[in-house]
């Protein structure tokens, strides 16, 4: 654990990012956007108090990517190394889902594996929370414990810099050889801040009926036939925004078409399980013809399937789906209703 003076943050990040494509946060009102840049720009870029609008997954699992052809794979292999600065825990933790599905489940998706290898993640502690944040209810916390390469905790006492991976440690040694060890005051400031923001977001989740140790798996599994899914599905317009905004959703479509030169081209593009034809087969059979069944399926996948196969929820409490939903379906309300009904 190292100490960085606030005044040196810009220089530090410029050095850290050198030679790589940079993804950073830009503030826009009370939101942040994940943007691409050539270099870290202290005038434009910030660490961010909480997660941006765009999920981190989009950097390693793009919304739409050419796959299935030697030229596509060569392009992925030749892609520039990149670094993202300001990733928050919800997004970093969500990559466990993508790692499991795309990289660890054989055969590996080489496009994802390459992008993961080429992307360094510099995370930082949340210093505030959005109204929709509820990460403690799904067993998460507003700071990274593992999964990024370097973590920054910006406190009034300075910035605590911590390497969380071997390559993070290597980069720190090369890019910032002179950083002193973090002193006790800085460590205490970080811990106090983590406790404060943790309490803030815990209270917000609890005020919506979502306690830290709630058994969401039991709640979802036990309500499949309950009317609550029909009630919430009344407001769903099947736009798929929840899936696209989600930090964990991984489903995709292999779409065949032709490129500008008329050659066959295959795209791997994000899909939505709320779409009517998501599970339909060519013969016409569709196990989820009803919208309520599709809405239930989304929660079943996140709160039942992934606990079964990976031992964790596929939800990190980022609240993006609640902000993105055209029908104003709030995941916190859905989970609360399921908890009450189960």
């Amino acid at each position, binding site marked *: 654990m190292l100490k960085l003076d606030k005044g040196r943050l810009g220089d530090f990040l410029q050095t850290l990012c050198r030679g790589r494509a940079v993804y950073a946060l830009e503030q826009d009102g009370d939101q942040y956007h994940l943007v691409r840049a050539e270099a870290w720009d202290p005038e434009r870029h910030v660490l961010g108090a909480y997660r941006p609008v765009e999920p981190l997954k989009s950097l390693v699992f793009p919304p739409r990517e050419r796959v*299935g052809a*030697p030229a596509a794979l060569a392009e992925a292999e030749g892609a520039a190394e990149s670094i993202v600065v300001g990733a928050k825990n919800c997004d970093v933790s969500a990559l466990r889902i993508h790692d499991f599905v795309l990289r660890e489940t054989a055969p590996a998706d080489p496009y994802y594996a390459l992008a993961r290898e080429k992307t360094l993640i510099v995370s930082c502690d949340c210093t505030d929370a959005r109204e929709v944040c509820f990460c403690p209810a799904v067993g998460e916390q507003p700071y990274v414990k593992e999964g990024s390469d370097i973590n920054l905790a910006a406190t009034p006492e300075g910035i605590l810099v911590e390497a969380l991976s071997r390559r993070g440690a290597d980069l720190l040694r090369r890019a910032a050889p002179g950083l002193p060890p973090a002193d006790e005051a800085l460590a205490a400031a970080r811990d106090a801040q983590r406790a404060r923001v943790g309490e803030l977001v815990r209270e917000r989740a609890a005020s919506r009926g979502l306690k830290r140790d709630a058994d969401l798996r039991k709640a979802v599994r036990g309500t499949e036939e309950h009317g609550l899914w029909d009630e919430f599905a009344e407001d769903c317009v099947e736009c798929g925004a929840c899936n696209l905004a989600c930090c964990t959703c991984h489903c995709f479509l292999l779409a065949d078409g032709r490129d500008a030169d008329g050659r066959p081209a295959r795209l791997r593009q994000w899909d939505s399980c709320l779409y009517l034809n998501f599970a339909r*087969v060519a013969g016409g059979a569709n*196990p989820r*013809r009803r919208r309520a069944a599709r809405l239930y*399926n989304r929660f079943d996948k996140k709160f039942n399937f992934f606990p079964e196969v990976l031992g964790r929820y596929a939800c990190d409490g980022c609240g993006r789906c609640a902000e993105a939903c055209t029908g104003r379906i709030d995941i916190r309300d859905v989970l609360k209703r399921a908890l009450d009904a189960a």
Partner: protein
Amino acid sequence: MQPDPYAPMPAAIVDVFAETPNIKTFRLRPEAPVPFRAGQFVELSVPGLGEAPFTPSSAPSVADTMEITIMRVGLVTERLHALKPGAVVGVRGPLGKPYPLEAMRGREVLVVGGGVGLAPLRALLFALFEDVTAYRKIILRYGARTPSDLVYRGALDDLWGMADAVDAMLTVDRRDDGWTGHEGVVTTILEPGRLTCDARNGVAVVCGPPIMMKFTTVKLLDLGYAPDRIYLSMEKNMSCGIGKCGHCRLGAYYACQDGPVFTFDKVQGLSRIWD
């Protein structure tokens, strides 16, 4: 360069056989052999148009070519049906799990097919025929809507030369003037008098349209088959074929990885499995 599981291998169509007015069998020769086992499937693509999952219907022991029996029901199959020998399609696979032949050895195997559902079962029958004495008895019960909907019609009389080894019976839902065989849905030839089986020790393998699989499963349970010895083809929307795209989830399973063949005990607790 690493292997790309989304990349299809070019495969030439070397022959096309019309089975019924809307079903054809295509013999393909992939650029390199695709050594599949009975029950495994492949993703077959028309370049630039789309891809769909099919279970090969030919003998798994023949490695350089494979036959795939395809009903015309959608965009990809419509285009496939228009293709002639010489055309090149794409193949990815083999994918999924094969029929567990080892669990069938020493047992009686009851094979129940409906319509084009006989296609994957034909690959299974060929695999069983290769070591025919290893199984106590092979029974085939096959039904289609009308006589002209029966696939492999030219081979059904002598069952690819293995008629002596198989207790076979066919049925059609609706007879026509030329049909002298049984009339009735496939479950009617699973009735006592038309079927003598060892349900207690035997295994049953079913493939057909969802409604046929549903009523056949009910019948097999009535006959006394154990849920873990009834093998069902749960062919969901298997798109990527490698457990990633999420389309074919069935409870805690992906049909493309854990199936497409499941024993009934694995899926009986799930809702809407026959939809």
